[in-house]
């Protein structure tokens, strides 16, 4: 019994009128934790009641403290009939359980009702007295800190990184219980909200236990997801990276070698002045992605087709000349030795050497191999038993047993995928996977599980006890600005064919020609020019099918989609004259009769990598003169675009001063880029051809599809002047951020009018949608120019035709619908620039039927140089006058003073301004304290859709309410910002015929306190961060 929870209800304000007769409310409050309930007195006839209750004390297990939310219900007293509920507040008390986080929750919290939305606010104070429990067998894990941030939190230092932790919890979805037929929508929604709150509490506790077992004290990069599997239940799963974090004493942090400090200006100092600057020779080498089939679908489930492809960071053996050969041999040898070394390092012994981090302390990341990803199609089996009218209750009876082994089934599925990822990483010569993430899409009974990450070699010192303080190079002294680009695999035994060249930066080691990763650009990386958002979009039709057939069809389509997405990415990358992708997220969503793929990443020109080659177009029938002409105009347009983009992104790599003797810079590498449009199996054989030994990057126009492809390549609307966008945390090449930021969420749903669309038609529509969305964003943010949209995160979903379903009434829609949800902007402004960033999420929609663990899934996996599945983007904005969003301060104070002088107005300290950002930091500020994780789940439902302004009005106010609730909870914890904010889930269902709609939203982030850095203060960290890289470089030269 090691905890005492205390709660006090102070007052309410802006309550709704519950008694029409008097236009007032007789409100009282129920405070519930676990099974204990307390009540306040009724405060009669007021919309601004002052309860000033005593302290309600709950004596509870810390296990319960972690699992249960504190539930506050505000009711209207009614003498004659049942008391009417006004609304509820769920308070997650987890932040109070860690001594380093918040100590008290106190403030105005919105009273929320799932039918009416926010109805007034309540002022509460919550505290916890925790007694230490030293019991080894305890079930609780109080004190383990959780961070959504995917880098080492700013005011901590990583003493040790233990590794991957995961857990999942399964339960029945209350929405699908038989009792739901008789209870009110409100009761059902509340049951669901409460259950999910409980489940995430439990999940967090279990993960915490694992962390304690590993000897850690924190989870970084905590990613929690829900799978709403409909009748087969509700899965809550989470992954994260266990760490031991030491708190930095404020003030000293910039003096220590802080691994958490990301140098904002790594490039402001040329890393190695001694060396001639690297550059590319004019006809730069290039090799396109090579299909390399490493396929695992080993599982029982196999409908698996073998996706014969992988996108490699293409590498091929160079033909080096004499003197270098020996050196190379030596290097190869040392590489082998390293590998031996790795085997003994701690990472190797982990079952899954995965890291959910995307941003690392300098020196942590040694080499990057490329993106590894795996997908598996599983079938959630439906119970078809029409004879038994009461399937549901039957299921209920059986539930316990089913539920008991459900987690195991799900666990096994994920385990399978993780093994696959691990083996892919190994094939790339890497012992770890960083930037790892998992996701699912569910459509009816088909469920696609995806995992992706970046294969990498890490510095094991961070995994060992007591190592950390000094950055010592584990590897053979690669300069930090290019070391991570060097290939981790043995060049004579490459996992896939690719072009290798000597690093353009240090000239000592080999680098691939293209690098794809899921992580953020390492702070120390040397970049030429600016980065930009690159998106590949793809739509494929699919026949409507059921069950196994459907799953097979999907898994057959997947590899082609991945290949094509990759091709698109590659082309767009070339077109922008860039050679690396960061933050790659690939999302594939399934609809009833189509599959959607959306890949977003941030393209960069890494100075260490060779310059990308151009794109050449050839026709199949050279005899035709007009055709030739057509091609040459096209070619010209492409060349013009490339030249224009070079200007736009400021990519001017220095010309090579002196050609390194024998450096294997080949002439134009020629290879063909093939398209896999049709389903025909010949494609596979053709794919093999693309293991190109041809001498240029060629787009062959052999059919109309290809023409359209090139068209679409060229018609990507250019960003308006003054806008920048990327999906990583920071925009490569832009360093003068301002502190003004603006986060936004945008959701769009399109209805496709014609169900008989072709692939091309759909592609066009889809691309237009995405482009329009971006255009719309640019337009809205035009007043913030120059601005950068960062962490732009797209989520897309194809709700099935009948998706539109509220509370299980039979839907009547017949056309498919596309949902696009972009999310999160931040505006930042600096000395004379302002940036704006946001992440967008396109959210998905699906209803799935009940399943049995005995699914018939098929696994398909693709492994290539780089790929991922969710998309995040940021746009950045630069502004000439730093002003825009200035909050709080003078005006508010004046206002509040005048308010106080007025007699009749209800109380009002001004509302604390809470910033929200999908970034892990706030530019030009210093985070002084992490207050705990925010993880909230809301359901909103309406039966008066038209009255609330239709679907748009409904969702608009719901999202605004969710923001308001997040802000209020952060403010109550004493914070003034949410970092690493993300909207994980946004499921929307409507039934306009019944005037109903329902929406579920899950958001998460880290509540923090930040202080503004004065400009003077801002400088030292820059210098400090510059230092490690300088030392690193010195060592190598």
């Amino acid at each position, binding site marked *: 019994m090691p905890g005492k929870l205390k709660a006090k209800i102070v007052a309410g304000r802006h309550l709704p009128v519950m008694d029409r007769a008097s236009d007032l409310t007789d409100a009282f409050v129920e405070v519930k934790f676990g099974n204990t309930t307390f009540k306040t007195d009724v405060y009669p006839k007021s919309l601004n009641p002052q309860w000033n209750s005593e302290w309600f004390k709950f004596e509870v297990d810390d296990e319960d403290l972690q699992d249960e939310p504190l539930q506050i219900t505000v009711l209207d007293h009614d003498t004659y009939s049942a008391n009417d509920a006004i609304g509820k507040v769920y308070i997650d008390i987890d932040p109070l359980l860690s001594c380093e986080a918040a100590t008290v929750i106190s403030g105005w919290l919105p009273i929320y009702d799932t039918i009416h939305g*926010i109805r007034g606010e309540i002022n509460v104070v919550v505290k916890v007295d925790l007694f230490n429990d030293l019991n080894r067998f305890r079930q609780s894990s109080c004190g383990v800190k959780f961070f959504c941030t995917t880098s080492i939190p700013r005011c901590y230092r990583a003493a040790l990184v233990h590794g991957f932790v995961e857990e999942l919890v399964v339960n029945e979805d209350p929405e699908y219980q038989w009792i739901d037929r008789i209870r009110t929508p409100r009761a059902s929604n509340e049951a669901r909200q409460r259950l999910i709150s409980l489940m995430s509490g439990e999940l967090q506790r279990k993960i915490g236990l694992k962390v304690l077992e590993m000897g850690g004290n924190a989870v970084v990069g905590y990613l929690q997801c829900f799978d709403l599997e409909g009748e087969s239940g509700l899965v809550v799963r989470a992954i994260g990276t266990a760490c031991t974090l030491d708190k930095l004493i404020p003030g000293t942090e910039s003096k220590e070698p802080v691994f958490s400090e990301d140098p904002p200006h790594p490039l402001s100092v040329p890393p190695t002045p001694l060396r001639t600057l690297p550059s590319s020779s004019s006809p730069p080498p290039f090799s396109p992605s090579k299909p390399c089939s490493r396929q695992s679908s080993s599982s029982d489930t196999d409908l698996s087709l073998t996706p014969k492809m992988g996108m490699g960071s293409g590498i091929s053996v160079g033909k080096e000349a004499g003197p270098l050969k020996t050196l190379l041999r030596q290097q190869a040898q040392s590489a082998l030795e390293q590998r031996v070394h790795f085997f003994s390092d701690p990472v190797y012994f982990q079952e899954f050497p995965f890291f959910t981090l995307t941003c690392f302390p300098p020196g942590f990341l040694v080499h990057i191999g490329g993106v590894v990803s795996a997908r598996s199609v599983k079938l959630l089996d439906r119970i078809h038993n029409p004879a038994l009218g009461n399937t549901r209750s039957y299921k209920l009876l059986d539930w316990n047993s089913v539920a008991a082994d459900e987690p195991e089934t799900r666990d096994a599925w994920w385990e399978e995928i993780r093994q696959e990822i691990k083996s892919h990483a190994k094939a790339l010569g890497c012992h770890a996977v960083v930037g790892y993430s998992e996701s699912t899409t569910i459509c009816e009974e088909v469920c696609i599980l995806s995992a992706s990450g970046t294969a990498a070699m890490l510095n094991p010192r961070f995994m060992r006890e007591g190592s950390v303080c000094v950055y010592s190079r584990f590897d053979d002294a690669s300069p930090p600005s290019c070391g991570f680009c060097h290939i981790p695999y043995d060049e004579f035994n490459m996992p896939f064919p690719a072009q290798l060249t000597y690093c353009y930066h240090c000239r000592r080691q080999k680098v691939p020609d293209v690098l794809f990763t899921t992580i953020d650009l390492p702070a120390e990386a040397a970049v030429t020019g600016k980065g930009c958002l690159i998106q590949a979009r793809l739509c494929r039709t699919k026949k409507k099918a059921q069950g196994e057939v459907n799953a097979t069809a999907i898994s057959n389509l997947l590899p082609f989609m991945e290949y094509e997405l990759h091709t698109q990415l590659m082309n767009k990358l070339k077109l922008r004259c860039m050679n690396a992708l960061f933050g790659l997220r690939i999302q594939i969503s399934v609809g009833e009769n189509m599959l959607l793929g959306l890949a977003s990443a941030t393209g960069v020109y890494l100075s260490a990598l060779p310059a990308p080659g151009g794109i050449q177009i050839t026709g199949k029938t050279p005899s035709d003169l007009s055709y030739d002409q057509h091609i040459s105009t096209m070619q010209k347009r492409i060349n013009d675009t490339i030249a224009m983009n070079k200007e736009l992104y400021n990519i001017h790599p220095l010309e090579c001063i002196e050609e390194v003797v024998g450096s294997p810079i080949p002439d134009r590498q020629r290879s063909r880029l093939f398209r896999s449009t049709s389903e025909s199996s010949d494609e596979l054989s053709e794919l093999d051809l693309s293991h190109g030994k041809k001498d240029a990057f060629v787009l062959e126009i052999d059919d109309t599809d290809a023409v359209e492809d090139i068209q679409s390549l060229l018609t990507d609307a250019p960003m308006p002047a003054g806008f920048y966008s990327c999906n990583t945390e920071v925009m490569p090449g832009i360093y003068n951020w301002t502190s003004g930021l603006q986060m936004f969420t*945008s959701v769009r749903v399109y*209805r496709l009018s014609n169900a008989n669309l072709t692939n091309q038609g759909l592609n066009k529509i889809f691309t237009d949608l995405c482009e329009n969305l971006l255009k719309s964003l640019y337009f809205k943010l035009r007043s913030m120019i120059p601005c950068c949209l960062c962490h732009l995160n797209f989520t897309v979903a194809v709700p099935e035709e009948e998706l539109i379903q509220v509370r299980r009434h039979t839907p009547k829609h017949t056309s498919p619908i596309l949902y696009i949800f972009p999310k999160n902007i931040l505006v930042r402004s600096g000395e004379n620039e302002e940036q704006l960033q946001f992440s967008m999420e396109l959210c998905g929609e699906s209803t799935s039927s009940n399943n049995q663990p005995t699914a018939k899934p098929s696994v398909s996996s693709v492994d290539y140089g780089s790929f991922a599945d969710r998309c995040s983007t940021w746009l950045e904005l630069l502004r000439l006058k730093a002003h825009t969003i200035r909050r709080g301060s003078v005006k508010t104070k004046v206002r509040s003073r005048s308010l106080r002088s007025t007699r009749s107005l209800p109380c009002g*300290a001004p509302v604390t301004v809470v910033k929200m950002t999908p970034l892990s930091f706030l530019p030009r500020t210093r985070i002084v304290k992490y207050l705990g994780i925010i993880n909230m789940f809301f359901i909103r439902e309406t039966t008066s859709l038209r009255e609330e302004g239709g679907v748009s009005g409904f969702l608009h106010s719901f999202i605004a309410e969710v923001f308001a609730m997040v802000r209020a909870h952060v403010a109550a914890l004493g914070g003034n910002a949410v970092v690493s904010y993300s909207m994980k889930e946004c499921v929307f269902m409507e039934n306009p015929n019944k005037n109903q709609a329902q929406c579920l939203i899950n958001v998460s982030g880290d509540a923090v306190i930040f202080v503004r850095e004065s400009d003077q203060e801002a400088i030292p960290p820059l210098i400090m961060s510059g230092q490690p890289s300088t030392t690193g470089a010195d060592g190598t030269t």
Partner: protein
Amino acid sequence: MSVELDVFVGNTTIMDEEVYQFWLDGYTVNDAVKVRMEGGVLEECEASAEVLRSDTMDQYRTFQMCERLLHSPAKLANQLLFQIPPHRQAMLIERYYTFDGLFVREVLGKKLSKGTKKDLDDVSAKTGVTLKSCRRQFDNFKRVFKVVEELKGPLVENIRQHFLLSDKLARDYAAIVFFANNRFETGKKKLHYLTFQDFAFCAGQLISNWTVGALDNMVEDMDVDLEKEFLQDLKELKILITDKDLLDQHKSLVCTALRGKTKAFNEMEANFKNLSRGLVNIAAKLTNTKDVRDFFIDLVEKFIEPCRSDKWTAGDMRLYLTHYTNSAHILDTFK
């Protein structure tokens, strides 16, 4: 393909002042899009009409959601739903409560009742202000009126604090409330040449000189009503016109003071008795509510029009009235 749903929500609520104005002016989304397109925003940002429409819709929705809060502006500062920087809040409120001079002239002095609201479509047709905007403005008047009606203390200050308006706007509202409360007739044809600001000036003068609050700030009463006692006292002025001697005495005092100072002296002298009679009669009748309503029309008919027909200048008028008042003070009766 059609857009089913299109929503954009920022953590800091993003608002475009131009669109806000369209919304306030009662433009429909389509009209607003049209006007914006003509305004050239499109060329500026290479956006399409669709983008513009979606943006306009978003903004309109935001404004609609904010409207409830704008009805009691104090709430805007401590509500949690929208995070709006204080200077934007001030802008939102100020613009929301800003009204059209043309429109307000139509309802000035009218009872702010449902009946008047029903006639707003006529007003709209007459003034060219959209009906929606008319309704908003009318409701604003009514809302301010209702809140202030019950409150004690200085009218302008009450309005300023409750509706967080600028001083200028608060004064205008005070005038509107004052006129509505006293039901001054302003709609007669003869008064048409007067603008709202003319009336607002008068209202300011009346409030600061003729109401209870005007005399004694400590008195816990409101500024909305004219002070009864004062009006009663005005009756005593009748002596100025009923007593022949006093009238002559007054006239000679005024004429002595005016002689040589104005071109219109002859007319002033000739008309003195008529004008003085007019003024005093108006003053003496003010205890009658009906006559209070006709205050302005009476002033124009009985005083301003005769003066105007004699081609007085504004300076002449000021001069005349100053001496008229001063001379009265010298008379024995008023000492």
